Each structure stands twice: as structure tokens, then as C-alpha cells.
């Protein structure tokens, strides 16, 4: 069983709420669900925003197709004319008097609920499942509103049921599945990973991480701060990390632009800080509400100078749950900043996930336990791995200074004179960590076997996995992007018949990166107009 439903209407009319409710109904019935929202940078208006929900009884990773879907729910004429050609079945005012039914119960705004009633009748879904979900969402305090909504729902269901027979059957097929957005997965994972301080300035599409943590973080002991700007955000996170707390910030490309100097600072003073970088269309304000993967080059080298850092890009939403734990462990073990590179498609889409709490292990790296002998303690001691035991404030004897200037093993600034030997050794010490952390970087996931390979990173894995499920083609899906371990996978790609890179930018940034490492890329399939790839596009372009 597979079903794709597109709900379209104007922004501010509750399209998203309706979509989320419906997605939750399917997830509770045990289906795999994926939900995607397309919208504009406007609070009320844009008559053709849509919410696309894909439901299946087997595992799915993406929203599916752009050009065809099973059901269109169109709440206005613009939406109807924009999307009707792709739909097998349509629910609009023409089929069901949505506004009339809603108005009868008090407010025509509830026409989206009426549409859900119609949909339930159409797809053979017992309307009580929807009613139950509405009750759950409104809670006890909203009992009255919930019942009014349910009255609308049921009347539309009866109306539709009396006029057409169901075209499918949607029954409970298993235990309820957990449904969450990529942003929620990152946030929840960060809490599980022991993050105790999150500081972020609002910016789409990173804000949902902040929203979730603002609500739930304090309950689990996470201090959440909205600072004056992104510069303050990362600097506060660095301060907290220096003080010994797992700290992170989150932003999008434009906000990260402002963080570059501090990012290099974190690397210089060897403080473990995590940055969730959620990409959207750039440059500048760009496409504030639409996705892109064009900040890869920036993530590779955000600050001036040379320094070690790590970039990981979770490939599907479930993987996002464990991304923060991995990022914090790497950051603390190697005492360096880590970027978790996601995008709007990843952060804002919903997916059913399996959550395994046993997968969370906190590895704090080398913390110097006190008391220490101050005269002997060297915060930046040169070691084989490049990592030096870190004393946090409060540790007796561990007093030292962390300076953005070049410094010696004790942390003392050396820049008041020319000290090439110390510079040589200390810079090499830091850079050595890059070679060390490389040992922990995982190769791409190679799936399928074919003469042709498709290469992708981050969230582009999602539509590709669904595309490849139905055909014989090899996939090389990268999560760990920098530093990049080159091993047998590279040989495998280089001996394939054709290697195609798929990514959401104009330049083919990741393809160029691979090429610079000697990986053969024969062709690039690129897209930079604000939406993720879909199965139908991949069918055509691959």
C-alpha cells in the first residue's frame, strides 16, 4: 500500500496543521510516513502552499514524486488549478461543500477539517482515527473546540461516504510509529547526547531546533538562550564549552557567515562546540523558505587560516537522531568544532523513525581530573595524537588561558615576538588532530550493486533511497564529509561504468570536492531552484 496526498491552500489557513494531523493518524496506524511542506516567506497569503504526505506499508525516506499524487485536497481555486492535473482524485469545494459544512458548525476556517473527513471516506480510513487524533491535539483544555472540529469532520465524512465509494483501505497495520521532523530529531538527539546549553538566533530553517529545545530543553536541564545575534550565539556556546558543558548553536547560511571568526577561534583554543548548520537557498537572504545544499564549500572552510574541524551531514531523518551524539563525541574527543550540516528539506520534513536509546554513548575525551599541579599543567601539551587533557574552570591547579593568539603549550601568548619554533610545533599539534579524527570518519554507505553509481550527501540521500529501491543502481551516500576517508569505496567508484553526482546546488560542490580527491565523477545532476529531488525527476535525469 502506498498513498500520496497533497493538501494545498493559502498560508495561514491551517494547511500545515491539517497535514501534521493527518501524518500523525497514519503513523499511529503503524504506517511509514513522510511529510513535506512547500511554502513561501509570507505569514498569510500564498494561495498555493502545499503539504505533501506520503504513506506506505514499507520503509520510505522521502516525499516521493512531484508530478503525480493520489489525492489532491485543494482549499481554493488557485490551488485547484495549480495541482489538479497531477492528481488521481481531487477533494475541493466542487466535490464536497467544505465551507458550508464548516460554517454550519460555527466557523468556515474549519473547512480543512471538513476536507479531512472527505479524505477519510475516499481512502477507506475509519474517521474515528482522525477524531481521536484531533482530540489528542486539542487536549482536555480544548475539548470544546475539538468536539466542534469533530462534528465538522464527521459530517463531511458522511457526506462523502454517501456519494462515492472508497478507492483504498487504510487499516491499522502495526504499532504506532514515532513521527518527527529532522529538526526535532536533531534536538532530541542533542538532549540525549548530554547537551546542556543551546544558544541560537532565529533563522529559517534552523529555528525549529530552537523552538523544540525552548519548550522541552528546560525539562531535561538544558539552558536555552536566544541571544542578540549569531556572533553572540557562537561565542556564548564557546564560553559554555570552555566551562565544561556540552554546548551548541544552530543557524542557517547567513547566520553562519557571522560565526566564521568565532569558529576559527574555537578551533584555535581547542574548545568542543557543535554548530547545526541548516542550509537554505543562497546567497544572501536567498530563498528563505526553500531548500538547497549550497553551503558545503563554506562548511569545509568557514574561517580564515588553517584549523581542524569536522563536518557531518545526516542523510535521513532517523539518522539525525544520532547526529548530535556523534558530533559532541567527536568535538570533545578531539577538542574541535563540529558542523552538523543539514538543510530545510531535512529539518522541516516529518518522517516516521525508529528510536534506539541504547545507541547513545557519551564520550567526553580527555578531561584533566583535578587537583592538578599548576606549575606543571600544560593545557596545550604536545602529544602524539595532538589532543591534550583539558582542565575546566573550577579544577584546582588547572588554571590556564585559552587564547586566540598563537600560544605555547601552557597557553601563553607568544606573539609579542617572532617564535617560529613554537608556532611550528603548536600549529602542527592542532593540525595533527585532523589526521587523528580521520580514523573515526566513516566511508559512504554503498548500496546496491551496479555498473552505475549515484553519489550524494546529506538529505539528497532521502529521495535517492526511494528511487533506488525500485531499480538496479549503486548508491554512494556520504554522511561524514570532512575529513574524508579515502579507501576501497573510491576504487569501487573509479572502476564503475558511470558515476553520477546528485546535489542541490549549481556548482556541484561535493562532486568537485570528490574530484579533487581523485574520485571520478562523470556527470552531475544538479538543481538549485528551491526544492529537493523527487523520484520522478531522478527517473528522468538519471
Amino acid at each position, binding site marked *: 500500500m502506498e498513498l500520496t496526498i497533497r493538501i494545498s491552500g493559502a498560508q495561514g489557513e491551517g494547511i500545515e496543521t491539517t497535514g501534521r494531523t493527518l501524518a500523525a493518524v497514519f503513523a499511529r496506524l503503524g504506517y511509514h510516513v513522510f511529510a513535506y511542506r512547500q511554502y513561501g516567506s509570507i505569514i498569510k497569503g500564498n494561495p498555493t502552499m502545499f503539504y505533501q504526505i506520503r504513506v506506505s506499508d514499507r520503509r520510505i525516506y522521502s516525499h516521493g514524486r512531484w508530478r503525480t499524487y493520489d489525492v489532491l485536497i485543494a482549499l481554493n481555486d488557485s490551488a485547484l488549478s495549480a495541482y489538479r492535473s497531477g492528481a488521481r482524485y481531487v477533494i475541493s469545494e466542487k466535490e464536497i461543500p467544505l465551507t458550508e459544512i464548516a460554517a454550519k458548525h460555527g466557523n468556515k476556517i474549519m473547512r480543512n477539517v471538513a476536507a479531512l473527513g472527505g479524505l477519510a471516506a475516499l481512502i477507506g480510513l475509519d474517521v474515528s482515527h482522525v477524531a481521536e487524533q484531533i482530540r489528542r491535539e486539542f487536549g482536555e483544555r480544548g475539548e470544546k473546540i475539538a468536539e466542534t472540529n469533530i462534528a465538522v469532520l464527521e459530517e463531511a465524512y458522511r457526506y462523502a461516504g454517501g456519494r462515492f465509494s472508497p478507492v483504498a483501505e487504510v487499516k491499522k497495520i502495526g504499532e504506532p510509529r514515532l513521527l518527527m521532523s529532522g529538526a526535532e530529531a536533531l534536538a532530541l538527539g542533542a538532549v540525549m547526547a548530554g547537551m546542556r546549553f543551546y544558544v541560537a538566533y532565529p533563522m529559517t530553517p534552523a529555528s525549529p531546533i530552537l523552538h523544540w529545545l525552548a519548550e522541552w530543553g528546560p525539562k531535561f536541564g538544558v539552558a536555552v538562550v536566544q541571544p542578540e545575534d549569531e556572533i553572540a550565539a557562537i561565542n556564548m556556546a564557546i564560553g559554555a564549552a570552555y566551562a565544561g*558543558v556540552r554546548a551548541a548553536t544552530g543557524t542557517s547560511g547567513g547566520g553562519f557567515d557571522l560565526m566564521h571568526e568565532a569558529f576559527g577561534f574555537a578551533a584555535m583554543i581547542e574548545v568542543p562546540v557543535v554548530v547545526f548548520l541548516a542550509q537554505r537557498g543562497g546567497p544572501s537572504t536567498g530563498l528563505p523558505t526553500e531548500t538547497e545544499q549550497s553551503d558545503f564549500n563554506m562548511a569545509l572552510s568557514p574561517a580564515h587560516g588553517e584549523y581542524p574541524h569536522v563536518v557531518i551531514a545526516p542523510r535521513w531523518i532517523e539518522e539525525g537522531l544520532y547526529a548530535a551524539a556523534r558530533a559532541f563525541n567527536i568535538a570533545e574527543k578531539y577538542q574541535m568544532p563540529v558542523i552538523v550540516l543539514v538543510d530545510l528539506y531535512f529539518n522541516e520534513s516529518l518522517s516516521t523513525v525508529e528510536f534506539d536509546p541504547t545507541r547513545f554513548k557519551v564520550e567526553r575525551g580527555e578531561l584533566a581530573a583535578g587537583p592538578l599541579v599548576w606549575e606543571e599543567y600544560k593545557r596545550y601539551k604536545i602529544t602524539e595524537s595532538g589532543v591534550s587533557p583539558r582542565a575546566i574552570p573550577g*579544577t584546582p591547579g588547572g588554571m590556564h588561558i585559552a587564547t586566540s593568539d598563537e600560544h605555547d603549550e601552557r597557553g601563553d601568548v607568544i606573539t609579542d615576538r617572532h617564535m617560529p619554533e613554537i608556532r611550528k610545533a603548536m600549529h602542527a599539534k592542532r593540525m595533527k588532530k585532523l589526521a587523528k579524527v580521520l580514523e573515526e570518519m566513516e566511508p559512504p554507505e554503498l548500496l546496491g550493486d551496479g555498473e552505475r553509481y549515484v553519489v550524494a550527501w546529506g538529505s539528497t540521500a532521502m529521495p535517492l533511497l526511494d528511487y533506488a529501491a525500485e531499480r538496479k543502481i549503486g548508491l554512494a551516500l556520504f554522511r561524514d564529509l570532512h575529513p574524508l576517508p579515502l579507501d576501497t569505496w573510491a576504487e569501487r567508484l573509479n572502476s564503475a561504468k558511470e558515476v553520477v553526482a546528485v546535489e542541490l546546488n549549481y556548482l556541484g560542490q561535493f562532486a568537485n570536492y570528490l574530484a579533487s580527491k581523485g574520485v571520478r565523477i562523470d556527470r552531475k545532476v544538479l538543481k538549485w531552484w528551491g526544492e529537493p529531488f523527487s523520484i520522478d525527476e531522478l527517473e528522468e535525469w538519471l
Partner: protein
Amino acid sequence: MKVEVRRPLDYAVNRPPIWCPGCGDYGILEALRRALAEMGVPNEEVVVVSGIGCSSQLPHFMKTYGIHGIHGRAVAIATGVKIANPRLKVVVVGGDGDGYGIGLNHMIHAARRNVGLTYIVSNNQVYGLTTGQMSPTTLRGTKTKTTPFGSVDEPVNPLALALAAGATYVARGFSGDVPHLTQLIKSAIVHRGFALVDVLSPCVTFNKVNTYDWFRARVYKLEESSHDPADYLQAYRKALEWPTLDPYGKIPIGLFYRTEEKPTYEEELLRLIGKAPIEAELQPREVLKLLER
């Protein structure tokens, strides 16, 4: 608890400061060490955070924890430290360029949040480390490398700004009077919320106008006047005296304003999260309960 008698030198490192002989920063360094010694704060419970500039070198000469950060961001960095571990005494040090120029917004926001920081600004009215350019507190008409015909910029009034922003402790000291400055810094560290101590701190190399003698001829102590530091409006009027109303007139030093009425930022956060981030344990079971909803 064992109370150790501490001396200012207990907060010193072997390394001598690299400032020019006669620099006002020596006075600030000495006053800070004396204040900590008088309070008997254990070295490991102090974090001195700075930005970039001559005075921002100060943490290097303290036997405490320290961060010598990036230009203008000391207050933001220190805010993170304080939130993570409110038990620490977090002292921020920097110059007027660092704090009132590139980093001014952070001071305003830290003041309005009332983060428990002691912010000591070494105000020498010039950019020293970059060899003598105009700073945000340079008086109108002053000739510097970047204002060869005299500055046309109106100087900022940091005390009035801090008061307007909601700072709960606002003072001005003079690095030519270390005992007085010591007491201001000490009461600033004792103060729970955000404390600004602006320090008139002559640059002997690049500022030939605002010298020790220039200040000595002008400063007077608020403690010796009828000023009441609990009176916000009076504090504001005092803050305007110099340089806003008369850049060449008398300069009040001392405590302008103090209130303990406002909760601090870290206290407010603690109310929400229960335990300081540094002390909190991971509670995965609680997280799992959330998922059962």
C-alpha cells in the same frame, strides 16, 4: 571550610605584563588582584575573559582561568561561561574599542539580561594595539592617526548607555587611584548582576591629551559628594556630566548606581532548568517518557 589568606601576588604569574611602562592597565591589573585577594576567592573559581587589544592581554598575567578571545566578543563568551557554571566569578576585561565599539551591543544585552559578570573596561580613548587610531570614546576634536584634522565623532557615554540598558551596577574608576579602583572592582564582583566598571586608563604612548595629569585635575569622588547610588535618575544625571555635557569639565568617579532588586539571568535560567548546566545529569529516561505521548 578552610579560609586561606590571600595576597595580590597569589593571583600573579611569573610572566611580566607586556604593556608600555606607565600604562593605565597596570593599575587595573593590580586593583583586580587586590580585590580578589581581599575577597579570598580561590584561583580556580575565577575566569577572566577578554577580547583583543592592549588591555585584553590582562588574563595572561592572572593565575586564574582565562579566555583571551576575539575582538569585541568577550562579554558574549563570558555570558556562556557564567550560564554554564554560575558558581564561577567571571570577570570581563577589555578596552573601549573592544567593548564600546565592535562589541558594544553585547554589553547592552548583557546589561539588560543582568548576567552576573564584572565588566572592567580600560578606557583610554584610543586604539593602542593598532597604534593610535580614534576610538568610540575619543573626545571630539582630538587628533589621532585616523583623525588628523580632529575627530568629528561624538564620543559614546558608556555609563549612560549601561544605565539605559538596565545595568544593575555602574561605576567609574581611575587607574591612577588603585585603592579606590580596588574597592569598586571588589564590590562589582560581590554584586550578583551585571556590573560595569569603566576605568579612566591613560595610554601613555598614543594619547597625549587624556593623561594622568589631565584626569587628576578633573576627577572627583562620588563618595565624597551627596550622591546616592540607589537613586537611578540621579545616577543618570551624574553619568551625563562627562563627557556628554562638558567633555573638559569635572569627571565623577566612584559608584554611580547599584541595585540588587533585579534577578540575574543565570538565576532566571536556573528557575527553569533546576540545576546549573555544569551540574546537571543526563536523564534519558525522562526523555523517553516524552516520546510516549
